[in-house]
């Protein structure tokens, strides 16, 4: 095989009470790759991303980023849950963009972006500000840096959220339906920012309903249903000639 994957999920499982939200999820994301996660509502896409970002704790299988097991340390054949600080450190290798933006409403766009670098990475303020301005410029918001989130459109807020995640210089960017809370005319600007990101070589795992984006930008598509990976493959191939019945049904329902 080629270089080891950046993200490796092996038979990952997760229950909420008696409900099995993830079962036997195995997938890999190589460095520089853009993988799109698609599937019907409730299929576990969000849950999987949240496990990767350790907002949720998986309960079966294994998750590794850059070869490091997430959430646990193994010693003498036994697992010790990592302390909060270690988890915070592991989280820094992933950046998360939420469906509902989740910007900090009491901070301006710029303050949102510099918060992580200054507090979590302890970078000097001037350096963090310079970098944040560059990132805001990159998502087309240089002249909105002193606006509070409430004064920004949904598309602008989501682009600030992307800049905020990028400011941590994560190895892997996670997107959870970043455009589904947006008015149709604002979707394009956010997808555009993500496309630029993909072109610059970022590794991305994107949950999306935008099949056009998945086809054009995604290297691979993973289709999930009922907590399991049903099928995965190169974007073009999966969209045009899906192997599984369930994938075909889903695609024909979405494409209308």
């Amino acid at each position, binding site marked *: 095989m080629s270089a080891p994957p950046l993200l490796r999920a092996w038979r990952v499982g997760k229950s909420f009470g008696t409900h099995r939200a993830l079962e036997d999820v195995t997938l890999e994301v190589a460095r520089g790759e853009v993988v799109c996660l698609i599937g019907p509502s409730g299929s576990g896409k969000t849950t999987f991303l949240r496990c990767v970002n350790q907002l949720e704790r998986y309960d079966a299988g294994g998750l590794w980023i850059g070869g490091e097991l997430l959430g646990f340390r193994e010693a003498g054949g036994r697992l010790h849950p990592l302390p909060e600080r270690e988890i915070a450190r592991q989280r820094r290798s992933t950046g998360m963009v939420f469906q509902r933006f989740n910007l*900090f409403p009491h901070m301006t766009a710029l303050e949102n972006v510099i918060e992580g670098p200054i507090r*979590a990475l302890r970078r000097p303020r001037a350096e963090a500000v310079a970098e944040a301005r560059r990132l805001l410029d990159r998502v087309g918001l240089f002249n909105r840096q002193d*606006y509070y989130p409430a004064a920004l459109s949904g598309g602008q807020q989501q682009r600030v959220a992307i800049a905020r995640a990028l400011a941590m210089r994560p190895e892997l960017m996670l997107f959870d339906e970043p455009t589904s809370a947006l008015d149709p005319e604002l979707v394009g600007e956010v997808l555009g920012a993500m496309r630029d990101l993909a072109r610059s070589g970022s590794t991305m795992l994107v949950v999306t309903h935008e099949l056009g984006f998945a086809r054009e930008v995604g290297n691979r598509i993973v289709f999930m249903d009922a907590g399991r990976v049903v099928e995965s493959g190169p974007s073009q191939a999966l969209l045009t000639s899906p192997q599984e019945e369930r994938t075909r049904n889903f695609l024909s329902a979405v494409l209308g």
Partner: protein
Amino acid sequence: MSGVPAGPAGAALRPEIDIARLPHVRPVHWGRIVTAAALLLLLALLVRAFARGQIAWPVVAQYLTWRTILEGLLNTVLMAVAAMAVGVVLGVLAAVARSSPNPVLRSAAQFYAWLFRGTPVILQLLLWFNLALIFPTLGIPGLWEARTVDVMTPFLAALLGLGLNQGAYTSEVVRAGMLSVDAGQYEAAKSIGLTYGQSLWRIVLPQAMRVIVPPLGNEFIGLIKTTSLASVIRYSELLHSAEDIYYANNRVMELLLVATFWYLVLVSALSLGQMLLERRVSRGVARPAGRR
């Protein structure tokens, strides 16, 4: 106006109307005028009653700035501010402990709120003040020791009593504020690598402030008046000073009015401060212009 036909048909007949160009008639609010007149009348009657009552107004004016009264006023302000400071610190700590994942901290905070909200504050004041009855000396064995009666001054007893009690109530206010912050904010904070403490301090508490400040202002106003209870342990706050004077000169009503005046002044000043603070903590919300 009478010539304009009513209804949609009429509107269609006059398409040239531009509401910016015609003079606007200000509606008359008869209800407001009547209630205002009634209230003014009541107020006038009240003022007249007091003016004619057996009150020596010159005495009120004289004692308004009497040295003992002003000292009492200062002590009231000092105690209220100090006890509120203790209360806010304890309240935030207890609220954070209440929402922490650590079950020991959670129960401890719950016990604290239960204990101090469960007993009358005047009782707590008396307990602290009389601590010497059960612990004649206080100290760290071998390092420092002192007689309890020397340490437990009326000031310290009042500060402990009022501050601990205030902390218990404040913790509930702060907790409600923290619960009002969207769970997505904790997650966003975590996702940029902040620790739990950093998320609370930088992200959650500042947003909770918007919900916390109005009831906290209310608590502070309550506390200013509760300081008067400290007169039972001989802390010479405003009411205690007024009482001291009227025991000597029998001008009971006059001195109570003096105290009334100063309490109202304090509370008004506080309300103004609260208004300014509320404006400050609602940064980022309800800011139509958007710019800083």
